[in-house]
């Protein structure tokens, strides 16, 4: 093999290595740029997502809350009759707890601002134990609370202490204890809960509500009688916008 070919070969190898080095460099730069872009995009998405998930704080006082004859509970400033936000919920349903944690404060604020009449409809959707029994005990206990503000405090307490769907929870003793903690003063509350006086009325109410409202699950949130999409109901600022524009 001549010296010349070998030199040419060396030159080619050198050129080849140079090209590879350039490519490596380009790759490194692209990598850095890509990572930077990905970080920026991810941060922007995350920030937006956090805002979509952020709950309101209950700003001031609550609107008057009144327990109705049929078991529903109305929260509205006096004279506010529209728009109506109906909340169909089950104390044992995890998604209802999530709705309460996410958007509950928005509903309280909207009612307090006089921008909505909020109606809670506690029902029992579960047909199997232990969830059915848990739900029935909790909802019938809530019916033992006659004062609206106390009912709402009890309602929040029940969600905060919601048992897992796989265990027996909402025991009578717990339900009485939480009533005390929520400031329930109704006479005979203890006995009302212990004897589960309202189970039959609640069951009847549940069945009737589910069939007349054509509910497919809980939580169902209706705005002026129309189902709100979960992508609205579970996004506090979207919920607020929907209710406010319905009131205009």
């Amino acid at each position, binding site marked *: 093999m001549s010296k010349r070919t070998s030199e040419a070969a060396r030159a080619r190898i050198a050129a080849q290595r140079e*090209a590879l080095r350039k490519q490596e460099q380009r790759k490194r730069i692209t990598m850095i740029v890509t990572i930077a872009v990905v970080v920026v995009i991810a941060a922007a*998405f995350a920030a937006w997502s956090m805002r979509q998930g952020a709950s309101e704080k209950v700003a001031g006082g609550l609107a008057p809350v009144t327990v109705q004859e049929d078991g529903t509970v109305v929260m509205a400033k006096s004279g506010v009759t529209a728009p109506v936000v109906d909340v169909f919920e089950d104390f044992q349903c995890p998604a209802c707890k999530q709705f309460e944690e996410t958007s509950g404060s928005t509903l309280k604020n909207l009612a307090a601002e006089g921008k909505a009449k909020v109606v809670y409809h506690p029902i029992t959707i579960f047909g199997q134990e232990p969830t059915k029994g848990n739900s029935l005990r909790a909802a019938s206990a809530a019916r033992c609370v006659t004062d609206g503000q106390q009912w709402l405090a009890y309602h929040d307490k029940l969600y905060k202490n919601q048992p897992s769907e796989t265990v027996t929870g909402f025991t009578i003793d717990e339900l009485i204890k939480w009533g005390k903690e929520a400031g329930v003063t109704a006479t005979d509350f203890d006995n009302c809960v212990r004897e589960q006086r309202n189970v039959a009325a609640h069951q009847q109410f549940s069945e009737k509500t589910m069939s007349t409202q054509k509910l497919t699950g809980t939580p169902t949130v209706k705005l002026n009688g129309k189902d709100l999409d979960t992508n609205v109901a579970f996004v506090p600022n979207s919920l607020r916008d929907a209710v406010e524009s319905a009131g205009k």
Partner: protein
Amino acid sequence: MVQLASGTSVSERLQPAKPALSWVTTAARVVLAGVLIVAGALKIGAPALSVQAVRAYQLLPDSVAQVVGYGLPVLEIITGLLLLVGLFTRAAAVAGGVLMVAFVIGIASAWARGLRIDCGCFGGDGTLAAGQDPNYFWELLRDFGLLVCAAWVVVRPASRFSLDSALGFTGERETTDEDGSDDGEDDGA
């Protein structure tokens, strides 16, 4: 002169070796990317639902479910975008494949434990509507198919219509192999 025979030009060697197969990679990339982007986009706007859908699996402690609920849609969209434009294809496909493995495990375990949930893959809070039955078989089949797509892209990351090939790097293994053979030539010289 093995080195001369094996490597005539760098740019030529970096082209995908088999055109037909590189089209398959393009297809696998786009399918996986499309599903990931759609799934992420449908969830990212309602993180409370996304968190609830994660909780419905009853697999992760609450704080972790919170992080996954918020983070997963972002991860899906980013991974999908990288796959779609074909940048760092292999790494993105690995990420996509890991996601699919996680989904398959999650759904299979929900099925095995007898839970009655919606996979929450494309939004929703994971609960089934009244009268609706779980769809575990089809959900698993879909995610398994996507896992196959991801695996294909990991094995053959070089593809058409990708930034990787436009920029001259078609997947890391090829480049490393070339580095390796060059070193070999050095020793021989």
